[in-house]
């Protein structure tokens, strides 16, 4: 049924799309902008070239195969994966609460969660030491009640990495939860799915891309963690000496090993970037 529309005698003609004049200043500034762009690109590119040009490609395998390097690689892998695992276990519920619950102090909790992304990692390490160190209030209690000591142990390295990595997961997953269409969850409920089933079979798969991206970011961050780890867990080969620490140490003694390990970290970062390019580099 067509509703009645008044005859269009009185209606105004459609407005022409508004166009902005091309300001002369834009043209005048173009050379300067181009110069700045060139400098910025060079600034990002030159260090990369410096590293790759000095990489002992032929000896890379043997450098990475040496016992201390292998143990640093292995330790890094274990610690970063453990940190990622803890970040998922604690971070997903936290992201859920931040995205879905209204509670007093929610923005405060969010600020607290994101703080480790901004705070210098060394400061994070000092703070961890003061809380979980042997004489820290939480550390002393852990020691007395359970006999657990964290500083200068592998568990401490994992803790330090989790501290700096989890914010990346929480923020990414929260964004995913916020942008997902919650009516899919309603549809699941009308089909008889209890909340846990709905979460497992609908919510989780729908935020899957965010969860993967968040986990990858957290993992990459954990893998590269230096400041908090060295402050809180120390630099003990085989126990807390992860790749970044080994790189720093090797820089003084065996430059080739430092370069080889750096190339490994760079390759990991590039891989994460490429796998999740649609997320981080939507136009690539």
């Amino acid at each position: 049924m067509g509703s009645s529309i008044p005859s269009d005698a009185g209606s105004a003609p459609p407005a022409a799309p508004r166009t902005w004049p091309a300001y002369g200043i834009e043209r005048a500034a173009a050379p300067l902008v181009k110069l700045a762009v060139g400098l910025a690109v060079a600034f990002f590119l030159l260090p990369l070239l410096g590293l790759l040009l000095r990489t002992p490609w032929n000896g890379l395998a043997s450098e990475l195969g040496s016992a201390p390097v292998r143990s640093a690689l292995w330790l890094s892998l274990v610690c970063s994966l453990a940190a990622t695992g803890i970040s998922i276990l604690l971070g997903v519920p936290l992201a859920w609460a931040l995205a879905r619950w209204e509670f007093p102090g929610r923005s405060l909790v969010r600020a607290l969660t994101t703080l480790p992304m901004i705070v210098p990692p060394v400061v994070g390490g000092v703070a961890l030491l003061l809380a979980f160190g042997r004489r820290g209030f939480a550390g002393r209690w852990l020691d007395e009640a359970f006999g657990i000591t964290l500083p200068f142990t592998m568990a401490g390295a994992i803790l330090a990495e989790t501290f700096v990595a989890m914010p990346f997961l929480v923020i990414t997953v929260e964004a995913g939860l916020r942008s997902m269409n919650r009516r899919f969850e309603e549809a699941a409920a009308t089909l008889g799915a209890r909340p846990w089933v709905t979460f497992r079979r609908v919510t989780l798969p729908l935020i899957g891309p965010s969860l993967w991206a968040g986990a990858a970011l957290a993992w990459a961050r954990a893998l590269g963690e230096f400041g908090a780890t060295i402050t809180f867990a120390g630099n003990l080969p085989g126990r807390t000496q992860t790749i970044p620490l080994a790189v720093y140490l090797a820089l003084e003694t065996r430059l080739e090993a430092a370069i080889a390990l750096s190339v490994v970290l760079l390759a990991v970062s590039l891989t994460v970037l490429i796998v999740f390019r649609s997320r981080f580099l939507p136009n690539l």
Partner: protein
Amino acid sequence: MSLEARVCLSLGTLKLDVEIRVPFGEVLAVLGPNGSGKTTLLRALAGLVPLESGRIVLDGVVLEDPAGGIRKAPYERPTGFVFQDYLLFPHLTVAQNVAFGLAAAGTPRSQARAKAREWLAAMGLEAYAGAKPGSLSGGQAQRAALARALAPQPRLLLLDEPLAALDAGTKLEVRRELSRHLRSFSGSALLVTHNPLEAAALADRLIVLEGGRVIQEGTSTEVAQRPRSPYVAELVGLNLIRGKGLPGGVETETGGTLVVPSNFAGEVFAAIHPRAVALHRERPQGSPRNVWQGTVAGIDLEGDRARVNVDGPVKVVAEVTTGALKDLDLAAAGPVWVSIKATEIQVYPA
């Protein structure tokens, strides 16, 4: 063996207060303008929005009763919901979508899968069992959504504008199929729609909501012949004039008088089909008892017919052929004469 519900709640500016009874095997259409509470009524029945007061009883089981402290969660209600945009889970295949409700109810996987296949066959979607919903056409997605809602054998089926998202070409075919499935559905069904033809084709009865209240109910024929609000009159395409009954006439709210064949007292509605309204450039001679002068306020073209809105002592819409439109030169300004035979006016108490 019925749905009996009184749904009272407020949501934003909407205040919903609706009482319905839908026996098993019956389809009730819910019509109403945007914001009248149609979708909210369905959502309340499904448990997706809580009642403030009232009661929902399905087949003798109380699903919700705020006074008695009863509120079953959506997943505890034997309802199936077909959403306007279908909401098929994009990460699951069509077959997994259809099996979802069965799996949620604890049906063993192989059995759920077999049942889902049966439903897909019934809907003519076997070929798409392994496809993702994103690759389905609108009509196929609608059928998949219906299969998903029906597979767990709900006792209450809720359809929110199930045909609205379809293009005109597929609408008729999907409507025919939907009608077939609704006929064989043994529980209570509610169908929200904007379209009185859809309501007539799919439902046994209909209610019209306006501002959260039922303003009219009955079969589609009853509602179509005797609209009780301007919205319904517009939907079914009738002129509706409210006024006071006089001996042999109706005094309209705008001050005009209609001559009608019978006597009524009190508040009345007068319904006139636009085809019964004739337009003239000169004052017509002859038998029509209702003749007045007016001005053309707007013209809508619908195929080979035109609906002409005429302002005057009584505002009416006249339906004329496009040929007549040209002959009368209605696009030009100037007065027109309206004539209506008294016998073409249906009068009934307001």
